């Protein structure tokens, strides 16, 4: 008779947790080692989930500080995180009988963080930010999909975020109240992955729509090394929010290069009148992601055909 009143320990031995005082080694804020216009590399792969009509997996290359921390760990807390997400596309499938007639493809998008995705644990019910991301993603894709080719059909796009971008460095987190900048990177990743998954599902689109992020970053005094903008904002493409102490404004675009069109634009924060530069930066970032996107879609096609 096994003891069912308690949660039994593992069959083999383990070690009890050690709560070490880490005060002697203060945590160091990661520093951006990329050029302002240098993007993080992407890994994108389509067709991973056989049960879905289309699917994609996307991850950002870990930033230099994160890679270094992983190689030689000095703390159990990773200094930053790198986006990892999966996207599944189900459909086009017929609308249920009960649904009203629709001459266009009915697009529904769900964005869900895995409970372990962020440093703060996420619940199983979608919260406001997740619903917000879903709406943004839908806007971005609606402009790209040729919806009237699929009347009376539904398309369901589900994005599961396995590892989210940090909103800010975890050391700053307790006393920071500014916007959640990580959401912007997550949205950009969602757009790129969803576009790949839609292409994998063979749904007609105007173009592959790629997401890109740019941000106006307030320069840190000690690390400013002769930038053009004296003691002020600086445009950074593909920002990792953990690497910056203060982000003034950020912008996400969903961009279709072939038509030179923006389907989704999300600008957050105070850019001080330089919106255009911010948008252009985001478009540049999207253009970079588009190259990977096109390559991944082509690779997916060559595998299946």
């Amino acid at each position: 008779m096994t003891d069912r009143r308690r949660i039994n320990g593992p069959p083999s031995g383990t070690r009890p947790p050690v709560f070490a005082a880490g005060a002697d080694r203060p945590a160091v804020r990661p520093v951006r080692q990329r050029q302002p216009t240098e993007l993080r590399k992407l890994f994108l792969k389509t067709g991973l989930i056989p049960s879905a009509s289309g699917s994609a997996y996307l991850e950002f290359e870990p930033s230099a500080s994160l890679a270094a921390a992983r190689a030689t760990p000095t703390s159990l807390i990773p200094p930053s995180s790198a986006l990892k997400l999966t996207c599944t596309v189900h459909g086009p499938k017929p609308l249920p009988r009960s649904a009203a007639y629709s001459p266009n493809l009915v697009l529904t998008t769900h964005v869900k963080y895995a409970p372990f995705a962020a440093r703060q644990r996420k619940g199983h019910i979608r919260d406001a930010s997740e619903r917000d991301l879903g709406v943004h993603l839908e806007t971005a894709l609606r402009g790209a999909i040729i919806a009237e080719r699929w009347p009376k059909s539904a398309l369901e796009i589900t994005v599961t975020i396995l590892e989210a971008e940090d909103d800010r460095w975890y050391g700053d987190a307790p006393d920071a109240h500014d916007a959640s900048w990580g959401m912007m990177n997550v949205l950009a990743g969602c757009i790129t992955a969803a576009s790949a998954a839609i292409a994998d599902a063979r749904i007609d689109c105007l173009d592959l729509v790629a997401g890109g992020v740019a941000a106006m970053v307030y320069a840190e005094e000690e690390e400013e090394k002769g930038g053009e903008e004296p003691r002020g904002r600086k445009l950074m493409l593909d920002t990792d929010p953990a690497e910056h102490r203060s982000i003034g404004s950020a912008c996400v675009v969903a961009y279709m290069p072939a038509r030179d069109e923006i389907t989704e634009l999300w600008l957050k924060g105070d850019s001080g009148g330089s919106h255009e530069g911010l948008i252009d930066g985001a478009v540049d970032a999207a253009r970079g992601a588009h190259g990977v996107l096109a390559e991944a879609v082509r690779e997916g096609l060559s595998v299946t055909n």
Partner: protein
Amino acid sequence: MSRHRMKTVSYDDDDDYDDYEEDDGYASPDPEEQARLEQCIQDVLSQLRGGEPSVSASREEVTEALWHYYNDVTKSVNYIRGKKAKEVQKQPPKKGTVSSYPLPPSWSSACAVPFSAAEFFRDSPWLNVPEHRKADIIVEPLHPRLGLLGGAPEAGGKVSKLAALAAARKKKESEKVAASPSPVPTPKAEEQKPEEVGDNNNPASAPSRSLLERLSSSHNGRQLKPAEGGLGGLRALGKGSRMGGATAPTKKSSLEKEAEIRAQTKPGSVTQPAKGEEKETAVPQQQDEQQAPVVNMMASPSTFATIIVGDATRPVAAAQSSHLKVQSVDVMDIYGQDLTEAFDFAGPSPDDLVLNAQSSAKGFKSKQPASKSKKVDLTGGMNNLSVEEKVSIKSKNLDVLSEYKKVERKKAASFVVIGHVDAGKSTLMGRLLADLQAVDARTLEKYRREAEKIGKGSFALAWVLDQGSEERARGVTIDIATNKFETDKTAFTIVDAPGHRDFVPNMIAGASQADFAVLVIDASTGNFESGLKGQTKEHALLVRSMGVQKIVVAVNKMDTVEWDRERFEEIEQQISSFLTAAGFQPKNISFIPLSGFHGDNVTRRSEAPQAAWYQGRTLIEELDTSEPFSHALEKPLRMTIADVFRGGVQSPLSISGRIDAGSLQVGDQILIMPSGEKASIRSLEVDSAPADWAVAGQNIVLNLANIDPIHLRSGDVVCSPASPIQNLTSFTTKVLAFEHLMPMLVDIHRGRLHVPGRISRVVATLDKGSGAPVKKRPKIVAPGAVARIVVEMDQAVPLEAPARIVLRAGGNTVAAGLLES
């Protein structure tokens, strides 16, 4: 008049308009009018130019307008203004590259001019819009607002005059509405003359261009590069083209260099594409460096991704970056301490140790056994609450089987006597018992006297077995009667079965207790034939289907046919062919001519000279040759209750029956099914002698205790509590059909047990030899065929797999067979 009206309402209809002019010949050559017209034209033109916004119109247009408005200058000016504004509105969809998204995708014609937010928003300040640039935006509704147009639909092409009239009026009204609330011209019209718009708010120094111009220029750009197609064109979207105005035209091949260039451009400052020509030159220059950035952006998968994607798909060329190497991070290494040892969860937990120590210190035993003993007490207490007086019988705990083997005993056999009514079954058995001194002479004499008293002297012997008053009065056996006798070798149990067709269920009960059968046939003229039609055949079939292998045919009443040998052989031939067909093996069939009333060839040879031809065995000799029958001693206990009765003061509740399988002994707990009640054996009798144990094959009487009589009925099954028989409401059986079978109501007989039920479906008819299905789901089963059927009953009945059952319907046996599941 009507024509004039016609003209005024269709003033904006260009096609019709020209026709009217030519056809009418209204233009008069009168010089005075010419001069006036010229004056009006000049007025209109000057007003158009001088007005806000300024509009340039050709002379012809003005002339036309004046002619329509009867040289009314103000009306003509308004008309021309409206017309020009409309033209501006119409132009973009004709020429523009910006297509709304429902248009089919144009992959081949990639947009050569890249998007620049700076350019896009150039002329529109984000905040602090100057007052003069603010305007009410009036969106012209797609459909006329209200009212029916009537006539043919517009899509049909041809519009009726009435509909056209109504449409025109409606349009005019809407125009009026649009014009009146906006004294400030619409932005569209404003863009017509950008030079007038002050660029005081625009930080860009370059002269701003109108949307129209930009659209047309981008359109030109597209036209210039039609060959550039697909993804090549897509990649050719150079950043430099946008930054072209500010960046140096020096092109470097690597991404880093390009990134440097991009870094040099200030993000805040809005750069301006200088001219269309420069754009065109920039695009081809970009083409040679398009590949590098795409490849460079590809990352190799992380460890996690490799697991998901699989190793095979990892790009080979991608360099292994440092984060790919799997490190097994040991926490202890990071914190540099080895304070703790791994805890082994196999032993008791520290809590357990403490609790055990505490309880032992207090002198208690561990908690678990204490509660257990308490539980036992509780259940014991519940049992003691029984109202009945508990009888505890001590079992001797014998090993019944070894006891059975130890005892040297005679062969035991039981046989059932069957045959048509009045074949002399009971008389024959009575004779057998009388001649073997199983019944004492005084009793026999008493029966004889009593029988003669009621005028039935010939029934005296039958009364040995027919004990019931009704049986004696009617002269027929009603219920089975058992009796015993012994020869030198064997102890026999006679089961005398009724022959009358009304009592076949009782006969079935008797047959189920028998090892072999004695078929009594009336040899007298006419009676044999009627018997053959009657129960002789049915009984033979029934005993065969009850599993009886051996049958002794006693051809009775041979004295009435003068021991006619031919008659005997005729009967022998008919009966043996029938029995062989019924499934008896010829070696198991024997025929004896005899006379039960006189006793010839029963226990002694016939002394009649006519019977001298028969030199075979007598009945008792034949019975003695029967081989011992094996019974399933090892199997769990099964006994069908034949009778429930009150045995006496000492044994207030007794049951009798024959043990089908297993063994029992005094003190055993037994389970009665279907009631599911338990009883214990107070004492038992084997063959009317007290015994401590009994085994399968023995006819026993059990005196029970600790059970209410209402739980006991004849036909119930006694079994051991360890392996109880199941109560079934439905079972599958393989039957031999005697009558037509179809889904119908039947009685199910098994020994004493008989319950109503129904054949719910016929699964298949089977081949008699192999048992393989011949026809699936037949509608009806013909007599003589073997079929597998499903029988359902209303009440649960204790039945077990190798049980022999008989199905009867309407007083006839319709089928007999073996229960399968």
